[in-house]
């Protein structure tokens, strides 16, 4: 089973505090959607509103064109995996999975068949008679997913389900979740503040900040063409380099000038921009390390981060600003070296004072 989910003009307040403001979103059947944003941006609240665990103050939520925001959680046909797993501690794994089905009067035969199938998919038939207290974190996580699967819901909701796992298990479970989605072909909504999870799992990412949606797009759209300065800074590690600049729109494509007189030619059409202050943004992989004097600017290396396949180089420019560049994995640059930084104008981004972004090639109509 799968479902379209339509969220229309939804708002939410807790007392005097506004948590979500006039938010709309269409989720297509079989889509894997990730709500990504910092803590307190409202992403979990939105998920809980879809689940029915929070009321909707205004607006409406529909699944397959049927309004569900007035229905109790159990009647919405969705299943949720909690961050803490929320397993019933006194029940065995089998009873945990059966509970929801027993409550709606599903026959014992069907329940057993579904539990066995879910246990097979999740490779946990040997855990069925254990209690949650006897399981490891990763196993509990599987049970929580299994409990969702047996309900054969229209949509799966995941509330930061990987954040309690250690790094290795998180990576493995992430891949398993992606495989599960391919296998079940269900609509899945996944809440996280981890951009790697968002980038790797999502068909589309919904980046949220400060009660609003900042951008909706595929992972590469979000990465390559961030709609706002917030998205540009939030997605990608290390964060995008931002440098305050002034615009020179005399040519076809804009040129930016920095405080120390350095200038970079972008490939962003001048006529799309307005005069005034702006912020120049460029990702670390688009800043190449070249011999001093041969790049757009020179800097002194502060810190090196060797990631294996590449080396991140934190260089300090003459005016004290730190810019992160990228060099080969076996780079022989050392701390204290003077290096040149070459900015790739084709990959540069410009942000106006309101935070709106423009990219090389064409303007973003965000």
């Amino acid at each position, binding site marked *: 089973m799968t479902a379209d989910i339509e969220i229309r003009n939804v708002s939410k307040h807790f007392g005097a505090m506004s948590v979500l403001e006039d938010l709309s979103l269409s989720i297509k059947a079989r889509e894997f959607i990730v709500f990504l944003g910092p803590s307190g941006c409202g992403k979990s609240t939105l998920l809980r509103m879809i689940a029915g665990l929070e009321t909707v103050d205004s607006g409406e939520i529909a699944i397959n064109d049927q309004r569900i925001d007035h229905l109790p959680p159990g009647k919405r046909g969705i299943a*949720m995996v*909690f961050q803490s797993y*929320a397993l019933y*501690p006194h029940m065995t794994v089998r009873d945990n999975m059966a*509970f*929801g089905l027993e409550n709606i009067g599903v026959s014992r035969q069907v329940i057993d068949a579904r539990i066995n199938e879910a246990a097979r998919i999740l490779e946990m038939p040997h855990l069925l008679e254990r209690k949650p*207290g006897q399981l490891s974190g990763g196993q509990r996580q599987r049970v929580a997913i299994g409990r969702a699967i047996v309900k054969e819901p229209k949509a799966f909701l995941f509330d930061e389900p990987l954040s309690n796992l250690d790094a290795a298990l998180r990576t493995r479970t992430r891949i398993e979740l992606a495989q599960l989605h391919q296998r079940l072909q269900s609509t899945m909504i996944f809440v996280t503040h981890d951009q790697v999870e968002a980038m790797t799992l999502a068909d589309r990412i919904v980046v949220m900040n400060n009660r609003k949606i900042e951008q909706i797009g595929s992972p590469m759209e979000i990465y390559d063409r961030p709609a706002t300065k917030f998205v540009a800074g939030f997605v990608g590690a290390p964060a995008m380099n931002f440098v305050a600049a002034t615009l020179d729109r005399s040519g076809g494509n804009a040129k930016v000038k920095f405080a120390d007189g350095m200038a970079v030619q972008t490939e962003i059409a001048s006529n799309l921009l307005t005069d005034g202050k702006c912020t120049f943004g460029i990702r670390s992989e688009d800043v190449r390390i070249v011999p001093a004097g041969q790049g757009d600017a020179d800097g002194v290396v502060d810190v090196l981060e060797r990631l294996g396949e590449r080396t991140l180089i934190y260089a300090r420019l003459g005016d004290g600003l730190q810019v992160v560049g990228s060099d080969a994995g076996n780079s022989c640059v050392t701390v204290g070296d003077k290096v040149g930084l070459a900015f790739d104008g084709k990959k540069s981004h410009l942000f106006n004072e309101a935070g709106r972004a423009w990219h090389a090639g064409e303007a973003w109509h965000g």
Partner: protein
Amino acid sequence: MADQLAMPHTATPAASLRTPSADIYAPQWRNAIFVAPFLFFFTTLLLFPLLWGIWLSFHKADTFSSGNFVGLGNYVRLYHDKVFLQSIWNTFYFVLLTVPTLALIGLFLALCLNRRTRTAAVLRTLFFSSSVLSVTIVTLIWRIVFIPNVGLLSTIYGWFGATAPAFISNPSLAMIGIAIATVWWCIGLPMMLFLSALQQIPRDIYEAAALDNANRWQTLRSITLPSIKRTFVLVVIIQIVLQFQLFGQAWLMTRGGPNNLTKPIVLYIYDTAFRRWDLGMGAAASEILFILILVAAMAQYLVARNKGDRV
């Protein structure tokens, strides 16, 4: 400073084994000073009287002499004493009346008052407030309620032209009267224990149950009650231990009457040891009460041995 801190790390492994930090788990007898005050009071006020009581129970003793060794003589006399056997039955009857009532009403109140409203907070305080009263005041209040002709109960029954049940003088109602007063007095503790247990159940389990289509009854039966099972056992055991020691209410409300029907074991011990001055027999009765309570307390370990429920 940095040098001083670094010194232990620069020592050789053999030397570091000899440093004080290497054997911090070795016993340091001077630390016994910290437990000495407790041990002193534990020994003089608990252990010594307990052992002395056991010793006394094997002797024919009064206040002037510890008397002759009589072996199990006192226990045999107790076995043949109809009043003692009656007092054991009375105590069990009282425990049977009060403990399930306290547990169930305590649970019911906790379930009703487990919410964050001002009314619930006021009611919680109100229900707990009776627990801070002394037994004298409690029995006084309930004597005023139960007293024939002019008591609160009689007055209320009088409005409807009926006669109030004689909770103090009627042989079949007297123990129930004491039980009512006791439940009213003791309800605060079970309620608070249940409340604290209820508040420790993670909220997301309830959310998961809501998503699992559980109605209120299914949630109570399958989520709430199993989650507070241990507290339920604890409350029952605590109350068994407490209610076995019934004394004040029975002494002040009925003096054990009518016809010894409300005389509990502790009152029997008091009568025997301090009114008839038969200390040996009183001590023997105490040991029997001790064993009864011990068995009840051990039941906690037997019932609460289930493991694997915790997440």
